[in-house]
């Protein structure tokens, strides 16, 4: 019974982790950017969604749409204000670009966190579930909303996979992640591809943020932990590998759920970190990463 409960409960949270991490890994794969403001962007989506839904009478669906829109907007601001100036700066040597992007996105993430804290206070908010009620899954009472979260997450990941493998622009993304220079030589404009990637990233982070708000709740203070968990998952799965991130999301999601159920809820973050350290020492490229 307990095993079933863990299985069902862990599934939704893992799907949500996967959704958050896929965007993160996509950006890294295509443009080599590790965005440490990731958690901040998710929380922007969550809090804007909650605010529109609760105070402007648009209901949970209107709120969710507004939240996703806010996520996309925040991703574009991150790209245009923080990442692109560094990529284009001539004063920053190429080999140090990575460090500058890490530091700058970290600062930007802090600005988002403190700004949200100021505007919305740091009380955790919970959005009304998009689908109320409970269903029985294999004898386990599960909120319908959790089923919706798992379905939406997997639906979006499926669509993304179709987009990348079947459409022209998707194939360009794939090519950019393999060899950006060759793509440029073939006459494709990299900056347009980056725009598409950041839009997809904003969409994924926005949806993940909104779903998180309807499930576990969100507050400005969460943004650091959210970035850390996305980071853990992406490293575990292999930087730049989408399937790897999904596997890793389930490893982390279940490791946390098992720890929370069987040992103590307070130890929840520990197993992911320990797994991460072991993976980094034994197989630094992660489960499915390439070097």
């Amino acid at each position: 019974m307990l095993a079933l409960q863990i299985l069902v409960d862990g599934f939704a949270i893992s799907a949500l982790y996967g959704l958050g991490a896929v965007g993160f890994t996509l950006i890294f794969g295509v443009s080599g950017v590790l965005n440490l403001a990731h958690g901040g962007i998710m929380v922007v989506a969550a809090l804007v969604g909650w605010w529109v839904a609760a105070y402007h009478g648009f209901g949970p669906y209107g709120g969710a749409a507004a939240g996703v829109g806010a996520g996309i907007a925040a991703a574009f601001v991150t790209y245009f204000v923080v990442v692109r100036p560094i990529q284009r700066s001539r004063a920053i040597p190429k080999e140090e670009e990575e460090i500058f992007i890490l530091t700058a996105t970290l600062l930007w993430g802090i600005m988002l966190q403190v700004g949200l804290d100021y505007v919305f206070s740091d009380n955790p908010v919970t959005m009304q579930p998009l689908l109320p009620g409970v269903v029985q899954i294999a004898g386990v009472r599960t909120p319908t909303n959790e089923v919706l979260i798992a379905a939406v997450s997997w639906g979006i990941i499926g669509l993304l996979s179709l987009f990348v493998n079947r459409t022209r622009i998707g194939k360009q993304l794939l090519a950019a992640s393999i060899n950006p220079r060759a793509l440029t030589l073939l006459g494709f404009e990299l900056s347009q591809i980056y725009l598409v990637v950041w839009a997809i990233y904003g969409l994924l982070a926005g949806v993940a943020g909104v779903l998180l708000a309807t499930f576990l709740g969100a507050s400005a203070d969460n943004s650091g932990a959210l970035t850390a968990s996305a980071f853990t998952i992406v490293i575990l799965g292999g930087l730049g590998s989408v399937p790897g991130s999904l596997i890793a999301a389930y490893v982390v999601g279940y490791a946390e759920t098992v720890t929370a159920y069987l040992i103590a809820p307070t130890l929840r973050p520990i197993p992911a970190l320990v797994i991460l350290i072991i993976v980094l020492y034994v197989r630094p490229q992660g489960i499915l990463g390439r070097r």
Partner: protein
Amino acid sequence: MPSTARLPLILLLLAGTLGVGASAPWWLGAYWLGIFTIAYYFGVFAMSWDLLFGYAGEVNFGPTFLIGVGAYSAGLLDNAGVPMAACIVLGGIAAIVGGLILAIPALRLRGPYFGLVTLVAVLLLLDFIVIFAAQTGGEIGMMVPDVLSISTSVNYWYAFCFLVVSAAILFGLSRSALGLILQATGQDRIEAQALGFNVTKHKLAAFAISALFSGLAGAMLTFYEGTASVDQMVDLSIAVQIIIAVVFGGRRTILGGALGAMFLVLFNELLRPLGQLNTFVVSAIALVVILFLPDGVLGWLLRPRTGV
């Protein structure tokens, strides 16, 4: 590199700074002395980080892991009855040991992976401090029975001397053969190896030195405050502030880190009326500096003016 013509000017500036700094207790109020004391320890954190980042080209996202290990080892030993001076030294040694345990496997990793291991190390240390709250005081902090001194001026001088000595040693190291080799490694690891330098050995040396000063500073700060606290020594926000301080002051300058740290601490103090928003403003300023003056303030002042 300063030319010989500028040497007297630089010596004058140095003597002036030392004089102003050392005489502060005679003309500065106790409140500001306290703030400068903290700023000086923070300056040592920043300088030790710059040795690793600016020179060895390794981003250590976990400087607070080293600081925390130093601070908490010293605190635990002091609570066990070890004399204070021994605790400070042992805190520094504990930081080296902790740092090497972390670094020996981690330095095999390239690029962002090293940074990640150090980031995770901080998160684990934080979790352990909270889990073993009975011994460490958890989130509240661990009281220690000894303090450096109860006099504000004496505490200030301790911190000032510590900063000056650390700055001299770290700056000297950065200009020595070790600094040059590290810089070469940071810029082109393969070529440095091809020239016959043992890259890993030099990086480990840099890591150990960085750990030693971080640990000592952490231990001294613990005995200044009378508590080892997560909020002030281990939290990731402190790590971020150290990084901001170095990038703002100018990486690869060592002294820039100390300037940046002082700027941060003083600025936070001046912006206190803004309440929560002061972190926002400080981060925004640091972001603007990174975007427009990537060499930092000191790097910008010292850049070669000829040509271009």
